[in-house]
C-alpha cells in the first residue's frame, strides 16, 4: 500500500486551507459590479397573496430592482421538480402541487420566498425588503401529519386531495398476514421520528453572472452535485441550455443532504442576473437556513413484528406517515419509500414484510434527504421494535438479534434489497466485548447504589450505500442514472489530475482519491490533484450523497486508472524494448519484471506528449476517462452499543460509553473513516436526545434558532470506541462499502434503547430531553 496508499492514515490535504481560513466558499466570491439579493419571505404558514406594494422599496437608495413571483412565472422559469416518480398502491402517479421559485398567489410555509430585492449592498437590499408591503389573506394551516390527514383539514394543493401525495406499499401483504396468523407472539410499537434541521456550518449561497455577449450564465453555488444542478436548471427550469450554463460548487462547508437540492434562491439569482444585467449574490443567514433548507425525517409509524414460539421472526408489518412539508423537494419522494422501506429487513431473516407509506403535505418547510435519508428512520423503527420484543419476550436483546441474524449471503430480503455480504455476528461479538456486556448488570447495580439509573441499548444497523445501479433505480422511478464518471490526466511532467463527478464538502476526497492513485502508481499524494465541483472542468457527474463517493466515484477513478496504466505500460514497453506483459508498476516506475530496466512515470508521460517515439498507431497523450455504474447497492452494517446513566432528579442522560463496530469493507483512510463515524454518531445522538424542529399549530417554526434548536456540542457526547470488522464488498473493484451515514443511521436507536432500559419505561420519543425522560420516569413510578 505504500505510506500514502490505500489503508494509510494520511492527514487530510485540504485541512491546511480550511483551518487557516483560506478555503474559498461561495460567499468569498466577489465579481465586478456584483449586486446583492434579499428575499421577502412569508411570515404565514398558509395565506393568499392579495397584493404587493413595491414602489417604496424600488425608490430606496441603492435598489436596482424588486422582482416578484408573478414575474418569474411570467418569464416561464419552470416550477421546482421532484425527480423520483412514486406510484400509489392503486397505480396512480404521486399527486403534486406546483412549486414556483417565488410564490405568485399562495404561500404554503413560513419562509417561502415571495419577492426579491436586488440592490448595491446586502444592507440596502435588506432595508428595501422591509419596505415591500405584501398583503396576505391568511388561510387555515396544517402544521403536522395528524392535522393534515384529519377530516376537514385545510388543503394545501388542489392536486392532492386530503393532503396525500401518495399511498405506497411494498412487500407481500398476504404472506405477511399469514405470518401474523401463525404467530406465537406479536410485538407492537408506535413511534415518531423527529424532524431535524440540517444546519450545515456554511449556510447556502449563490452567485450568478450572466454574460449577454455569449448568452452564458455562471452559477457559483453551495451544491453537493453541481452537474445535477446544471441538468435540472437547464432541462426543467429553462434557465439556459447546458452548454450555456456553468455551475461551480467551490469549497462547501457541509451539506448532509441539504445541498443536494436545487433551491428557489439559485433559480432566482440566475434569473435576476439576466434581468438586471448585473451579477447577483445571495447568502443565506442562519435564520433563512432554519426555514428554507430542506428538513429531514418526520415520520409517524406503527410497526408490528410476529414471532414464533422459538422467538424467530415470522413477519413485519409497518405503516408510516411521512411529512413532506408544503412542496415536494427534489428527491423527497424516494426517501420514505425506496430509501426507507427497502431497509426494513435490517440484519434479520424476516420471511414476510409488508409496509405502507403515506406521504403527506403540511404547511411546513419541505422535507428531503438528510444524512442517512430513510435509513435512519428504518433502523430506528426496527431496532426499537426488536429491543421492545426482547423486553416483552424476556430474552436477552443480543441473543434475540443473534437468533434472527442473516448468516448466508447473498440474501434476498422481501423488500427488494439483495445483501451481497456481511458478518453480523462478528460485529455484534466485537461490540459486546468492547462494552463488557457481561459486566453490565454489576455496573447497573453499582450505579443504583449511587442513586443513578444505568441502561444499555443495542442497535444493529444495515444500510444501503453506493447509490446506485442506474437500471435498478430507473425501474423504481428515479429520473436520473446514478453512476459516476472520472477522468485521469497524466500531465507531461508526470503529475496527475483526477477529475471526478463526486463533490467533496467535508468528506476529504482530495486526500482519499489521491491515495488510490498513490497506491496504484507508488507515487506521493502531493503529485496528485483532485479536480471537482466545476461543470466546465468535469464533463459530468452525479455528486456526493448516500455514501456513494468511494463505492461509485472511486470505482470510476479505478477504471480510468486501469486504462491509463494499460496505455502507459505500452509506452514503457516500447521505450524499454520489452513486452508490455512484463511491465510492472512500482514506486512510480515502470519496470521490466525480473530486470533492473525501468522508466519513471514522468518519462513515460513525457514520451506520451512529445510523441516522438510511440508504438505505431498509438495516439499521443496520457488521459483516460471512465464511467462506472454499480451492479448493486453496497451494504455497510454494524453494531452500536450505548451505555447511559440517567439522573433521576433531572432526567438528564449522560453517556458512560458508546461502542461502534462497523463493517465498511475496505478502508481507504481509517482516520477519515473514523471522522465520518464520529460526525455521524453525533448527529444520531443529536436526534436522539437534543434536536427537534417543532412547529406550533399555526405553522410557525418554534425552534428557528440555536436558542431553541439544540445542536449537539462536544460535551453532550461521549468519547467513542470505534472499531471495524471487514467483509469486502464483492460488487466494486475496491471492496468498499461507504461510511458517511452509518453513525447517523445506527446511533439513535442505541441511545433510546439505553435510556428506556435505564428508566424502565419504553414509551419515550426522540428527542429524549431531560423533561421528557423525567416525565416518563414519573409515569413509570406511578404505574409501579
Amino acid at each position, binding site marked *: 500500500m505504500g505510506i500514502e496508499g490505500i489503508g494509510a492514515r494520511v492527514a487530510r490535504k485540504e485541512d491546511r486551507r480550511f483551518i487557516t481560513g483560506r478555503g474559498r466558499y461561495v460567499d468569498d466570491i466577489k465579481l465586478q459590479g456584483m449586486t446583492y439579493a434579499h428575499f421577502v419571505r412569508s411570515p404565514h404558514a398558509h395565506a393568499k397573496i392579495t397584493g404587493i406594494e413595491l414602489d417604496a422599496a424600488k425608490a430606496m437608495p441603492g435598489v436596482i430592482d424588486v422582482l416578484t413571483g408573478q414575474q418569474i412565472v411570467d418569464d416561464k422559469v419552470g416550477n421546482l421538480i421532484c425527480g423520483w416518480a412514486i406510484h400509489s398502491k392503486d397505480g396512480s402517479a404521486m399527486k403534486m402541487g406546483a412549486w414556483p421559485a417565488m410564490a405568485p398567489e399562495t404561500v404554503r410555509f413560513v419562509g417561502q420566498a415571495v419577492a426579491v430585492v436586488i440592490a448595491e449592498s446586502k444592507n440596502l437590499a435588506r432595508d428595501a425588503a*422591509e419596505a415591500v408591503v405584501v398583503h396576505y389573506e391568511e388561510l387555515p394551516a396544517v402544521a403536522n401529519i395528524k392535522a393534515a390527514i384529519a377530516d376537514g383539514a385545510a388543503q394545501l394543493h388542489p392536486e392532492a386531495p386530503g393532503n396525500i401525495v401518495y399511498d405506497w406499499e411494498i412487500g407481500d401483504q398476504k404472506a405477511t398476514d399469514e405470518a401474523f396468523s401463525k404467530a406465537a407472539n406479536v410485538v407492537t410499537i408506535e413511534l415518531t421520528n423527529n424532524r431535524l434541521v440540517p444546519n450545515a456550518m456554511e449556510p447556502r449561497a449563490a452567485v450568478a453572472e450572466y454574460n449577454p455577449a455569449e448568452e452564458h450564465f455562471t452559477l457559483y453555488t453551495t451544491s453537493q452535485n453541481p452537474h445535477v444542478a446544471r441538468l435540472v436548471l437547464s432541462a426543467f427550469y429553462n434557465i439556459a441550455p447546458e452548454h450555456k450554463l456553468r455551475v461551480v460548487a467551490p469549497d462547501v462547508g457541509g451539506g448532509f443532504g441539504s445541498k443536494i437540492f436545487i433551491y428557489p434562491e439559485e433559480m432566482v439569482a440566475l434569473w435576476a442576473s439576466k434581468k438586471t444585467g448585473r451579477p447577483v449574490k445571495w447568502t443565506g443567514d442562519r435564520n433563512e437556513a432554519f426555514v428554507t433548507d430542506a428538513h429531514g425525517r418526520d415520520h409517524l409509524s406503527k410497526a408490528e413484528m410476529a414471532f414464533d414460539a422459538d422467538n424467530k421472526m415470522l413477519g413485519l408489518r409497518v405503516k408510516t406517515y411521512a411529512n413532506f412539508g408544503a412542496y415536494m423537494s427534489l428527491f423527497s419522494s424516494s426517501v420514505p419509500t425506496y430509501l426507507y422501506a427497502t431497509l426494513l429487513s435490517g440484519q434479520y431473516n424476516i420471511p414476510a414484510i409488508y409496509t405502507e407509506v403515506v406521504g403527506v403535505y403540511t404547511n411546513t418547510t419541505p422535507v428531503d434527504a438528510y444524512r442517512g435519508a430513510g435509513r435512519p428512520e428504518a433502523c430506528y423503527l426496527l431496532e426499537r421494535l426488536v429491543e421492545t420484543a426482547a423486553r416483552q419476550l424476556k430474552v436477552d436483546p443480543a441473543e434475540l438479534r443473534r437468533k434472527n441474524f442473516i448468516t448466508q449471503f447473498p440474501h434476498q430480503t422481501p423488500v427488494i434489497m439483495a445483501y451481497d455480504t456481511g458478518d453480523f455476528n462478528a460485529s455484534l461479538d466485537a461490540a459486546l466485548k468492547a462494552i463488557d456486556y457481561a459486566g453490565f448488570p454489576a455496573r447497573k447495580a453499582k450505579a443504583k447504589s449511587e442513586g443513578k439509573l444505568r441502561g444499555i441499548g443495542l442497535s444493529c444497523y444495515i444500510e444501503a450505500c453506493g447509490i446506485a445501479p442506474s437500471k435498478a433505480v430507473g425501474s423504481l422511478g428515479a429520473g436520473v442514472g446514478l453512476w459516476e464518471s472520472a477522468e485521469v490526466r497524466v500531465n507531461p511532467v508526470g503529475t496527475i489530475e483526477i477529475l471526478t463527478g463526486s463533490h467533496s464538502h467535508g468528506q476529504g476526497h482530495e486526500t482519499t482519491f489521491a491515495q488510490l492513485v498513490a497506491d496504484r502508481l507508488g507515487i506521493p499524494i502531493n503529485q496528485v490533484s483532485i479536480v471537482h465541483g466545476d461543470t466546465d472542468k468535469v464533463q459530468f457527474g452525479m455528486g456526493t450523497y448516500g455514501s456513494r463517493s468511494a463505492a461509485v466515484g472511486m470505482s470510476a477513478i479505478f477504471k480510468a486508472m486501469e486504462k491509463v496504466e494499460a496505455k502507459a505500460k505500452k509506452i514503457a514497453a516500447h521505450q524499454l524494448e520489452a513486452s508490455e506483459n512484463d511491465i510492472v508498476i512500482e514506486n512510480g516506475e515502470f519496470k521490466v519484471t525480473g530486470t533492473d530496466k525501468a522508466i519513471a512515470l514522468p518519462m513515460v508521460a513525457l514520451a506520451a506528449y512529445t510523441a516522438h517515439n510511440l508504438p505505431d498507431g498509438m495516439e499521443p497523450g496520457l488521459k483516460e476517462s471512465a464511467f462506472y455504474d454499480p451492479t448493486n447497492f453496497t451494504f455497510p452494517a454494524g453494531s452500536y452499543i450505548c451505555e447511559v446513566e440517567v439522573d433521576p*432528579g*433531572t432526567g438528564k442522560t449522560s453517556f458512560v460509553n458508546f461502542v461502534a463496530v462497523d463493517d465498511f469493507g475496505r478502508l481507504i483512510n481509517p482516520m477519515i473513516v473514523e471522522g465520518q463515524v464520529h460526525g455521524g454518531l453525533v448527529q444520531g445522538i443529536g436526534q436522539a*436526545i437534543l434536536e427537534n424542529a417543532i412547529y406550533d399549530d399555526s405553522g410557525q417554526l418554534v425552534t428557528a434558532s440555536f436558542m431553541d434548536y439544540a445542536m449537539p456540542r462536544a460535551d453532550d457526547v461521549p468519547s467513542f470506541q470505534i472499531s471495524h470488522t471487514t467483509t469486502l464488498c464483492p460488487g466494486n473493484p475496491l471492496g468498499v462499502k461507504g461510511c458517511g451515514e452509518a453513525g447517523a443511521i445506527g446511533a439513535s436507536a442505541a441511545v433510546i434503547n439505553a435510556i428506556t432500559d435505564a428508566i424502565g419505561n419504553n414509551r419515550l420519543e426522540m428527542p429524549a430531553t*431531560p423533561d421528557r425522560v423525567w416525565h416518563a420516569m414519573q409515569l413509570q413510578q406511578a404505574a409501579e
Partner: protein
Amino acid sequence: MYSTNYHRASSVDEAVALIAKGSDAKFLAGGHTLLPVMKQRLAAPGDLVDIAKIPALIGIEASGDTLTIKAATTYYDIMHNADVKRMIPAIAHLTSVLGDPAVRYRGTIGGSVATNDPAADYPAAILALNATVKTNKREIPADQFFKGLFMTALEDNEMITAISFPVPEKAGYAKMRNPASRFALTGVFVAKLKSGEIRAAATGASQDGVMRVPVIEDALKANWSASALDGIKVSDDGLIEDIHGTSDYRANLIKVMAQRAVQAAG
C-alpha cells in the same frame, strides 16, 4: 443591523452625558445581548455608548464582609478572581457555568443584571445574597431591583456601576442548563447570610423572572441540609411551560437544584 453611532466613553460621567445627548441611545458593555438583537434588527439604538473600557467600571474589591464587583468586569475576570473564589466561591462557580468561553470573555455582570433575562444566572445570586445594585445615582437593594421579565428598577439612562455582595456564611448555586441555549432551564442559588437570614432564589423557572422561593427558605431555616427539602413541594403556579420543560418539571427542578445547591454550599 441598522446603522448606529458608536462612542467609546472613558469615564462614567462622559458615558452618562453621551447617553443623555444621543438618540435612543444605549450603553454597550459586553454586547452579548445587545449586539445579537441589533443584528436581528429587533433593536435600533441611534447611539451606542461603549462603557466596557471605563477604568472605574472594571475590577473587584474585597473589603471586610463585602465583595464589590464593578459593572463592566467580565465573567472571565470574575471567575478567575482570587477574592471571589475565596469569599463567595458560589459566584465563581455560577460564572463558570454561564454561557461558553466566548460569552465569558466579553459578557459583563452589569450587562447581565441590567438585562434581567428571566433565564440569566446572576439575578439569582444577587437576589439570594441580598446584594446591592449601585448605580451612578443611587443604591438599590436586590429585593427592589428585579421587576419581572427584562424589567428592572433602573431608570432611563441610569447606569449600574457595581454590585456589592455581603459575604455569606455559606452559599451554593446549581443550574440545569437549557439543552439548546444553555441559559438556566432552572437555576437555584441558596445562601445562609451572616445575619442568619436564609435566602433562596430561582431563575429560569418563573414567568415573572427571578424569584425567591419561600418554601425552600422555610425548610432550610429549620434545617440547613439537602434532605430538609426531600418532603417539600414546590408549586408549579406561574412557572414557565415551554418546549424545553413543563411547569411541573420546572417545579421539580427548583427543588432538585436547591438540594444540589445546598450540597455545594456545604
